[in-house]
């Protein structure tokens, strides 16, 4: 091969050759050899017994039994099946390896290597055959056939790929507007607690409190679990009450809140985890996934972490009875970014 670069392997200490075979203890001591044989046989011999034990446990240990032992709490069945089965399998392995190590001859042998590539002769012959084949196919003179074939084969890939385009609906502008760009929030939808679906009275919320909430109309989807899951994934909100004197409320959002009760999307603008950790002294809301931190006392701007956009705020007010109700849907799409998202309307620190 081209040796533009030299690799030298000098041997200042000459190769002493494969070390002489050293007898094992079992090779020289017949008693040790017999002991090894017995040990290996014991490994193999225990396996049927353990297998039988496994079957007995399967049939006779009820799944309700539990094992309590030194802080260990386990299903008895799982424990015994695993222990007996695991040890049985292990013993087969230990037996076989010991057999190879102690009983089988342990003379090292040496085998020659050959270069991975073919010899020049083989190459020549292969090339000849290829040449013969090409000649026989007459391709070199039939340019029309080879050209059309070269186009034909790749063109088959396109239909195959196209059939995959129906894997989901296409997110054109209309589809996006109906799905990822909207939620079921709308003017007049009541805010309800997320588990019990109870309406929330503004006066019942104390300063520092955080409530996980949902739109009241989420219950309309009870008969369609898939639609409900998709709606929940976007419409989940949190309501917090802060002391109005300690927070910044921009002019444009003066009437989005009720006496320091503010409502934000619960869906992180980073990759969409539901945000849950609330530090009520600082008004910071921390996402448990990658620790993006949003300042709910400042229109939800990011104060730390990998999220790049403020948490969307839901404009709310109270109805005639004092229950919290949405003034409109979200004014920007909630959740993580996507390419077609127009992110010029999101709140930025200092906006009014």
């Amino acid at each position, binding site marked *: 091969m081209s040796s*533009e*670069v*030299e690799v030298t*392997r000098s*041997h*200042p*200490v*000459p190769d*002493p*050759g*494969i*070390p*002489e075979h050293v007898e094992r203890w079992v090779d020289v001591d017949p008693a040790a050899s017999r002991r090894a044989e017995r040990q290996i046989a014991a490994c193999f011999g225990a396996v049927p017994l353990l297998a039988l034990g496994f079957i007995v446990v399967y049939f006779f240990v009820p*799944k309700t039994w539990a094992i309590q032992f030194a802080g260990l709490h386990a299903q008895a069945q*799982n424990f015994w*099946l*695993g*222990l007996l*089965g*695991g040890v049985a*399998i*292990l013993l087969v*392995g230990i*037996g076989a*390896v010991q*057999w*190879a190590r102690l009983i*089988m001859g342990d003379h090292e*042998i*040496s*085998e020659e*290597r050959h270069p*991975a590539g073919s010899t020049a002769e083989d190459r020549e012959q292969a090339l000849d055959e290829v040449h013969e084949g090409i000649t026989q196919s007459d391709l070199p003179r039939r340019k029309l056939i080879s050209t059309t074939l070269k186009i034909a084969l790749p063109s088959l890939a396109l239909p195959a790929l196209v059939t995959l385009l129906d*894997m*989901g609906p296409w*997110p054109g502008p209309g589809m996006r507007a109906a*799905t990822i760009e909207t939620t079921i929030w709308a003017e007049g939808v009541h805010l309800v607690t*997320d588990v019990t679906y109870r309406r929330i009275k503004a006066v019942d919320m104390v300063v520092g409190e955080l409530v996980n909430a949902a739109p009241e109309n989420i219950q309309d989807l009870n008969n369609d679990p*898939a639609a409900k*899951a*998709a709606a929940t*994934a976007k419409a989940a909100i949190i309501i917090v009450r802060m002391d109005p004197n300690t927070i910044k409320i921009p002019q444009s959002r003066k009437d989005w809140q009720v006496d320091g009760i503010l409502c934000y999307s619960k869906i992180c603008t980073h*990759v*969409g*985890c*539901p945000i849950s950790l609330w530090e009520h002294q600082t008004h910071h809301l921390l996402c448990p*996934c*990658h*620790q993006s931190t949003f300042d709910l006392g400042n229109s939800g701007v990011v104060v*730390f972490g*990998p999220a*790049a*956009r403020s948490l969307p705020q839901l404009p709310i007010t109270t109805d005639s009875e004092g229950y919290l109700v949405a003034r409109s849907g979200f004014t920007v799409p909630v959740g*993580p*970014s*996507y390419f*077609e*998202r*127009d*992110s010029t309307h999101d709140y930025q620190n200092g906006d009014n």
Partner: protein
Amino acid sequence: MAKPTTVSSDSPALDVATPEGKKPLAGLGGPAGWLDDRVGLAKLSKGNLRKVFPDHWSFLLGEIALYSFIILLLTGVFLTIWFKPSMAEVEYQGTYQLLRGLPMSEAYQSTLTLSFDVRGGLLVRQVHHWAAMLFVAAATVHMLRIFFTGAFRKPREINWLIGIGLLSMALIEGFAGYSLPDDLLSGTGLRFVDGLIRSIPIIGTWAEFLVFGGEFPGTIIVPRLYMVHILLVPGLLLALIGAHLALVVYHKHTQYPGPGRTEKNVVGYPLFPVYMAKAGGFFFIVFGVTVLMGTFLSINPVWKFGPYTPNQITAGSQPDWYMGFVEGAIRIFPPIEWHLGHTTWSWQIFLPGVGMLGLLFGGLAAYPFIEAWITGDKSEHHLLDRPRNAPTRTSFGVAGITWYAMFWIAGGNDILANTFGGSLNAITWAMRFAVWVAPVLAFIITRRACMSLQRNDQDRVLHGAESGVIVRTPDGGYYEDHMPIPTDEAYTLTQHAEYPSLEPTAAVDENGVPMPAQVTKRRARVRDWFFRANLAKPSADEIAAAHSHGDEAHEVEASDEHKAVSQH
């Protein structure tokens, strides 16, 4: 010690004696003969049965990966008997009291059924998950073994690429499996993937809608991942593992350097019976250990997490360990997002998420070719390098591990902050620097360490090993007596290849006709840098001189015993 100087493969000493009398398969009758008549069994196995495999513990790493894959296939088939890949909603009425009456997907329900109602179901689930952890871990460490010993060099570059394919597929397979039970953790992971896919510039939304069949979560992602997990990726893994092993057989295994081992031979034990018994036995050992892990160590107790609901999450949720580095990159990447016109480019998700995986696997795939370009070495390599003798490669490897580890640690920045009471903010900033600084430090330290290890080798060859005996000279001085090392070791420490530095070749030949430069100036410089930390090994003369010098100096004190040892 007397030693044979050369070993020929046909020397009588190496023939394993066949006991006199009847051969076990005399005449190839019975089923073996029947098969041979049809498929030429004897022709196929002749020569291959006694194929030689070298022995070393580090060669077991690939085997562990292989065996855990087989365990995954076996346990996985059992799980498919009960698991229902459906996101249709049902109300749980099974054995586990705490979740009774709750709405959940059929996927989650059937996972609970497997865990509480199917005898042995929980065991098999846990064995499957442990085997998956082991599979990825073993493949990763196996890859490191290949890297640090230079086993990826010619002619094994293709097998290295197949290995990279295997490792990346293993990650996908693991992630798909993790997502199937549709519990709160796996759903959270899926939501992350949804956000990740979305962030791909230009086509992200389209990719998201096609993969999830519409908006997140939809009803089709679990069935689709199921197909990926039990058919598509296992099929690819099987095919790749087949090719991987076929190439190992074709190339014959590499071997560590040592007496009698050359680039032209392979020394070890025959496939049948020794290697078969060892490898077969080792399969059962790995299997037995994973079963015991599944018995004693609880893993992924999905009933504790509850069914997935898109508005809930548990604090401190973590992916399986092998996704930790991506998680870390996502956490510490600064919030760089472009809002251009009516579009949004989320680099802070795309780059650490998709880009990081691309960088890792792309970098790994490219390495053998980069190194070959730098060294210009075009010869075949079957003797492994001792990592210290390839200091720059070793330093790259350690730097890479450090880089990976920093991201991995960053994936637990909240846990770090909680455990050590630091501020999350400070830890995140520290990690942002650490991912750049730590690998550089690791590189420098490793290179120095390799050089001192090489120096240590030189010392042992020239002056012998420290004997632990302090000798007092007649004039009151002290020194530690050294014993010559065995020839076998001296050979092993001095057999490695050397790469003398290159003169850039002229770009014109002697007649002034331009010709393609064989060695450009730049190449010569990079190559010099690559081999700068390789110390020249002592020459035969130097060794001889050092030994005779040593003998003189110690003559007075040398005991008879010492003399006996040094006569080699």
